[in-house]
């Protein structure tokens, strides 16, 4: 009986260790490039109130004329460093993928067929194809090809 109990315990541990989630490394593309090139694109194309400019969305973008981190901010005050930093972190989280970064939610969902729920008046996703200029900026940034800060 005691031996059976040990087998059950050891078996449970083995199964549990098999199911234990693997650690996930969150990509960390350049913050300076995000601030200069990526953040304005996300504000323009994603940060709307009913889209990714609301507090209940995991991916959200803070900024002027949109969701403000500090409710004391005037609507059109320039972005605060906190808002850009938080937007960067949220955007990083959308790059997590077991597949190449092109398959991450940030880059895959915004293309046709990517499963993005928000479509425009013509039924299109955010970017028509990977050759879109703004999409290209997001892609190069996510790949680490846009890097203005220190490595």
């Amino acid at each position, binding site marked *: 009986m005691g031996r059976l109990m040990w087998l059950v315990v050891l078996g449970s541990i083995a199964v549990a260790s098999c199911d234990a989630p693997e650690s996930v490394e969150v990509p960390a593309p350049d*913050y300076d490039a995000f*601030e*200069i*090139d990526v*953040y*304005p694109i996300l*504000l*323009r194309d994603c940060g*709307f*109130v*009913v*889209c990714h*400019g*609301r*507090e209940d969305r995991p991916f959200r973008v*803070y*900024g*002027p*004329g*949109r*969701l*403000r*981190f*500090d*409710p*004391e*901010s005037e*609507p*059109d*005050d*320039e*972005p*605060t*460093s*906190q808002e*850009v*930093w*938080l937007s960067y972190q949220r955007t990083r989280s959308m790059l997590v993928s077991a597949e190449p970064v092109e398959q991450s939610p940030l880059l895959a969902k915004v293309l046709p067929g990517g499963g993005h729920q*928000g479509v*425009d*008046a*013509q039924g*299109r996703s*955010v970017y028509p194809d990977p050759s879109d200029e703004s999409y290209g900026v997001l892609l190069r940034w996510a790949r680490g090809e846009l890097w203005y800060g220190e490595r």
Partner: protein
Amino acid sequence: MVRRALTWPGAGRLVLVGLTLVGVTGFSTPALFSEPVVAGGGGGRLFTGSARDGFGCDVCHQGAVAPALEVEGLPEAWVAGATYTLWLNWSAGSGAASFVGEFVDEQGWGVGSLATPPADLVEQPERCASGTLAVRLSDVLEGARTVFAIPACGASSARVQWTAPSDDAEEASAWLHLGFVHGDDSDTPDGDGVTMIAREIPSAASRASAEGCRVAGTGPRAPWWFVLVAGAWVVGRGRRRR
């Protein structure tokens, strides 16, 4: 591309993440759409729902019934070089009404040209509470959009004349795209009603090709300058008779 340096936040500031409430704001006037996004603008998005724009006013404004907007004067088919008077009417009611509209081709580029009524033809409902003409034109965006808009200023009517392209050889359709917001005068985009309009206007040439004959669509109207010249001629003729 807007480039603006922002300082890296100190680690201590991140403690505030879970403690601070957030505020939701929106565009208070269409004039902001052409401003850079980091200045609270639309970064070039006009929210008309056209092919190049995609999104409408309803990506921010929400929470009330769609306001009624009468649109008159659009032709059944446009004739090359003809001028049409678009007439928009809405109930001023409470709150604040504003819109942005544009005439575009299939790719979303502007087609034709626009004109606003000259000062002496402006009617009272077309004026802001301040007395100025409400409807404004803009060609600042990409230099190739024919855009008209009114701010939330108390007007309840707007006219704008659209002159169709002089060449209809390609038999292409034109589209009127317009986003109309009736806000509740709050500082948030909640509680606002939105009406989006998308009307295709085929070219008369394409209709003629399709039907084998010219179509007698809605007749083009005289441009503003013709109304003024004709009026001056009538007045001058009356004086000579005396």
